[in-house]
């Protein structure tokens, strides 16, 4: 019922979708033809850098990547990502106003207009937050949409104006790096250099005020000035990136490279470096694809390139990536499985008062309640890990000294924890087993020493079974010498 209700609006769209699918083949053909003709030529043209417009575009892409990467890093760690988004949309009316100033695409006028509009948006946000009940996210959302709406109206008006040189004005929405000229590159380089040197000079102030504002204030760092300076720099960075990425997507170029870098690094300067590299790769990638597709808008391709890099980092990042985490979880699960198998072997041997050297695989399967096949696999796994050896016909399993040590350690952890829960935490003896099943794999040696001390080196668990001591475990390493000398009735299998 509910599903039907939800899907209702889409009912009207079905014919459209069908039409689209039906014409897919024809459309694909057309795109294929178009690309076929020019793809190779375009690639050669791109690689040879003959086209001066392309050279400007690439220079712009590199500067933009570095600038957005740097500013984005601080934006992300200062938790201002939404602020970046808002400024980037709020600049649009300023762009239009810059054009209307003298009715041509004058980079300087547009730079000033856009910066002013962005800053005005920010001031409005802070005033709204301070003087009304509205919270910051609401104010940000309102200013973003409001300014952007005004900007779109103005841009629409400009397109309809009978006079003025409007060429390139339509590129501000989605960006066109190929539209960058020498003058724009100069301004970009200048702003880039200023940002770079500011971040270099005020690096430690930016770092400490991003990490811990109240501490930064307490050591007399001019936190507010640093913040305002940063926001001004951010506004400049956004404005000079506009022509290449476009108003709509510039915030993505700020945030995605920084987010990628955040997954790849644990220290600020590495994060900055990574963010710049990802930014440059995304910038150049966007220009490349836009060029291949014959002047498609650059912005979406830059963001797409950045998103691909982010996805790669998300999966393959060495420490924070999903693959690394999955691997960690898996190896932990495997270790716990191995340890549980060792424990089962130990229990069987203990039941037989350590009279036998090993256990039969069948006995192990019975005690674990598993099929013979699964148990055999577990045994082979133990053999691979060097914790046990299998007999020739795979009928019996013998623990190596190493395996014996591990087994004793696990059993000790388990019984010690049970003892701790009953003695120190007043658990009932029949409540403690499940808890110890988990803890036994986690307890570190330091904690174990502490527990032993606190429990006065107790030698029995709450169910009366002996707890292996550190001497027992250590002597399992030697083979013949310590035979029969176990402290708590444990002897080594020899």
């Amino acid at each position, binding site marked *: 019922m509910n599903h039907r209700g939800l899907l209702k609006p889409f009912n009207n769209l079905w014919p459209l979708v069908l039409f689209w699918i039906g014409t897919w083949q024809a459309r694909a053909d057309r795109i294929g033809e178009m690309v076929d003709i020019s793809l190779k030529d375009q690639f050669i043209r791109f690689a040879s850098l003959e086209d001066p417009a392309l050279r400007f575009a690439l220079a712009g892409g590199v500067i933009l990547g570095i600038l957005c990467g740097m500013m984005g890093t601080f934006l992300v760690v200062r938790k201002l990502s939404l602020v970046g988004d808002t400024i980037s949309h709020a600049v649009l009316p300023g762009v239009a106003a810059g054009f209307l100033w003298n009715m041509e695409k004058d980079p300087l006028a547009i730079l000033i207009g856009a910066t002013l509009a962005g800053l005005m948006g920010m001031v409005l946000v802070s005033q709204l937050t301070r003087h009304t009940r509205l919270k910051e996210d609401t104010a940000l959302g309102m200013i973003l949409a409001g300014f952007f709406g005004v900007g779109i109206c103005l841009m629409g008006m400009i397109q309809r104006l009978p006079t003025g040189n409007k060429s390139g004005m339509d590129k501000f929405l989605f960006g066109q790096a190929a539209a960058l000229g020498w003058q724009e590159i100069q301004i970009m380089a200048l702003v880039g250099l200023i940002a770079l040197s500011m971040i270099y000079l005020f690096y430690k102030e930016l770092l400490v005020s991003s990490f811990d504002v*109240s501490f930064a*204030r*307490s050591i007399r760092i001019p936190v507010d000035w640093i913040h305002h300076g940063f926001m001004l720099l951010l506004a400049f960075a956004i404005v000079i990136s506009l022509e290449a990425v476009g108003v709509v997507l510039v915030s993505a170029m700020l945030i995605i490279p920084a987010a990628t870098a955040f997954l790849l690094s644990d220290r600020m300067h590495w994060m900055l470096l990574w963010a710049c590299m990802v930014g440059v790769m995304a910038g150049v990638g966007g220009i490349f694809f836009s060029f291949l597709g014959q002047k498609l808008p650059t912005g979406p391709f830059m963001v797409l390139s950045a998103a691909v890099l982010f996805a790669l980092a998300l999966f393959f990042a060495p420490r924070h990536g999903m693959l690394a985490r999955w691997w960690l979880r898996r190896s932990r699960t495997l270790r716990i499985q191995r340890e549980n198998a060792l424990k089962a072997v130990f229990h069987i041997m203990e039941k037989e008062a350590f009279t036998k050297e090993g256990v039969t695989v069948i006995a192990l399967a019975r005690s674990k309640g598993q099929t013979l096949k699964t148990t055999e696999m577990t045994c082979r796994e133990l053999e691979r890990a060097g914790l046990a050896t299998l007999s020739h016909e795979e009928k019996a399993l013998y623990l190596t000294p190493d395996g014996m040590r591990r087994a004793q350690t696990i059993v000790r952890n388990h019984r010690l924890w049970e003892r701790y829960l009953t003695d120190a935490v007043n658990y009932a003896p029949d409540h403690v087993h499940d808890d110890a099943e988990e803890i036994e794999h986690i307890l570190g040696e330091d904690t174990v020493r502490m527990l032993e001390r606190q429990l006065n080196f107790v030698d029995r668990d709450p169910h009366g079974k002996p707890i292996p001591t550190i001497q027992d475990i250590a002597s399992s390493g030697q083979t013949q010498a310590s035979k029969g000398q176990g402290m708590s009735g444990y002897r080594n299998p020899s």
Partner: protein
Amino acid sequence: MSSERKPSDSIPLEIHDLTVAYQSKPVLYGIDVAIPPGKLIGIIGPNGAGKSTLIKSIMGLIPIEAGWIRLFGEPGKRHLKRVAYVPQKESVDWDFPVNVLDVVMMGRYGRLGLFRRPKAHDREVAWACLEKVHMTPYADRQIANLSGGQQQRVFLARALAQECDLYLMDEPFAGVDATTEASIIELLHALRADGKTILVVHHDLPTARNYFDMLMLLNMRLIDFGPTETIFTYEKLQKTYGGRLTILSEVADAVRQNHEP
């Protein structure tokens, strides 16, 4: 004149008629107190008593409605550099991309001034401070990969690196393990032995009696201030905690322990 300034210079912190308000709702009223040097002082009071507010206003982090604060005998922020502040652990994002040594190094930033980078000497100091809180094995760790107690010790090491004369700590014992608690106490005693003055916001009554030389009882007003023996009495604690039942039983417990030995 100078002869008058000398003795007052030995008073690290003097507060006169201090009133602090959040959005015109007063949190602290007319606090008058002079802190003697070289003492370990606990600030005790119920939730919302203004304990954190008091040390934040001393640090100049929140505006003062009325009254004045003198640091080392002088008004204004001249001697703020001689005061180290340890914020509550929860006030920062521990996923921030810095390692333990980076954070401790931030304690040196206040002394460096603009445009200066940490030198070899600063690194030595930071390392020594890390040693004092037994955290050198963790110097390279990203700060999210630490236990709560270790994070607290990182903050303490940062404060030590500031090499100050007055320390203001906001709940350093909150939610820490026994090892950290012992190491913090050891550290506070070492600081006191060096003649430093330490103010600690503390919420656990039973331990307060053992930890501190002097206690400041606070509940929006200064209830009392003096040596622990004279302050830690049933009447004064009851006055501070205002007869609230749950806390009253805690107070009773603490007082009972006081009379046992």
